[in-house]
């Protein structure tokens, strides 16, 4: 397993220039998620607009995978409907749980398919999921379907 196949160029780019990073107002719900095994953290705010689209902001610290994945998640989910956001999360989760068996549908997941290689490293899967889980939790709370965690 070469380093390059896990750390695809696109991941390193997102890591160096994360999209949408920085907390913003207004927000309806703020969540704080951590990866207890390594201490990576994300704070994520959400505000679901009147038209049902998701407005996100986030900040965090952690490894290249967790930071790049949060950035990609932001790009994909920001401005989408709740249903679309959740569908993306489900699709990404499935990719991450595939133990390297799946490569992901680029039409749906866009840059997120670059994380396919991560799914071979169980210890890093949690990193890749951190931002997504925070998003799902926050949006769920915002639309009142309970604590998604």
């Amino acid at each position, binding site marked *: 397993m070469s380093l390059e196949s896990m750390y695809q160029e696109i991941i390193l780019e997102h890591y160096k220039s994360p999209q949408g990073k920085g907390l913003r107002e207004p927000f309806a719900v703020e969540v704080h998620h*951590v990866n*207890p*095994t*390594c201490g990576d953290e994300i704070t994520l705010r959400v505000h679901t607009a009147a038209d049902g689209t998701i407005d996100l902001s986030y900040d965090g610290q952690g490894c290249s995978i967790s930071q790049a994945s949060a950035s990609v998640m932001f790009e994909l989910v920001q401005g989408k409907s709740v249903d679309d956001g959740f569908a993306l999360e489900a699709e990404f989760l499935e990719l991450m749980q595939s133990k390297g068996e799946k490569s992901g549908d680029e039409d749906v997941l866009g840059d997120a398919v670059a994380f396919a290689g991560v799914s071979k*490293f*169980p*210890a*890093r899967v949690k990193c890749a999921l951190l931002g997504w889980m925070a998003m799902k939790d926050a949006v769920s709370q915002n639309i009142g379907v309970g604590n998604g965690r």
Partner: protein
Amino acid sequence: MLDVARIREDFPILSRKVHGDVPLVYLDSAATSQKPLSVIEAESNFYLNANAAIHRGAHALAEIATEHYESSRAAIAHFIGARPNEVVFVKNATEALNLIAYGFSNATAKFRNGSQLLAGEERFVLKPGDEIVLTEMEHHANLVPWQEVVLKTGAVLKFIPTTDDGRLVVDNLADIITERTKVVSVVHQSNLLGTLNPVQLIGAQAKAVGAWFILDACQSVPHMSVDVTTLGADFVAFSGHKMCGPTGIGVLWGSSEALDALPVFLTGGSMIETVYFDHSTYAKAPAKFEAGTPMSAQIVGLAAAVKYLSDLGMDAIAEHEHRLTAAALSALQQIDGVRIVGPTEALNRGSAISFVVDSLHPHDVGHVLDSRGVAVRVGHHCAWPTCRRMNVPATTRASFYLYNDESEIEHLVSGILAAQKFFGVA
């Protein structure tokens, strides 16, 4: 039908001699079972190829170890009809039962100290006079922890009584398990008497009054097919070493709901979510109950044990033991002066058979048997109050498992006759 001769080849210790040149007849599996080669090798192979700290490493070996660990959890869960995240690893059943008992004393202590309880913990707070119902045939492991809870909370113990032939009296359960009852904790199959208890019945009454229902399944899971989800229990405890697994590993099963609500027990590494100097938050079950570096090699060994048992088939094992039990009960009762302590018929009973021999103390019976290679256990079998209830100071206990055969019953019988002769009581 089990091919016992074949099976015995998997257990080299059964071919060993004792006291010089006397072949071993091992009838003490209710205390601890022997281990097949596949289990011994699974542990060794883990150390030789996969050993690393699990759940923590970002390196290949740690991932290999974690994969062994979690696939073992899945296999063990599958063996008892459970989901992996409902299986908590402990060192033995005693720890499992204490873990639950401490759930109650911890919740109560926090409550009394005015500390904030976590969601669900209030269901474990005991008030003085709240009742904990056990049976008169509990192992010390399911009695003493509750006595300690009583000392810490002011709760009260009550007991479902036992008949003279070692069955539970269950026709007036509603008088014993009442609105005051907060906990019902019962042995599934008695290690002293052999009795298989009607746990669904007891569980139904526990649920009817909203009490937690706990099963000590130490003597059932090794010997019969047990699906934990069909017993009506919130928690089920058992030990690996009695089911062909290594020493140092036990299992606490809990429903997700029960495990989520239960307060933490041992705290430290691996069971946390976040830690600050002044407070911490905890992971979800099962991690929240697995503080510290786990018994990884033993967990892998236990997974090998459940594979070994499953390959033979738990129903075939149960049937084999049932046949031996029936034969042993009848052979023992044909000896003048021998009395069974516990049910005298093989119906709803396991293969642990306690007996007394008139005018002979169990220690002396055991000693004569041992001189002939027959390994039995003598004493109160960690169920001392039950011995008193049965009006015996102690018993001799022979117990059978998948590797025993009829010829060993004959050795047992001729050993008892020899003891009677030696001490001049027959």
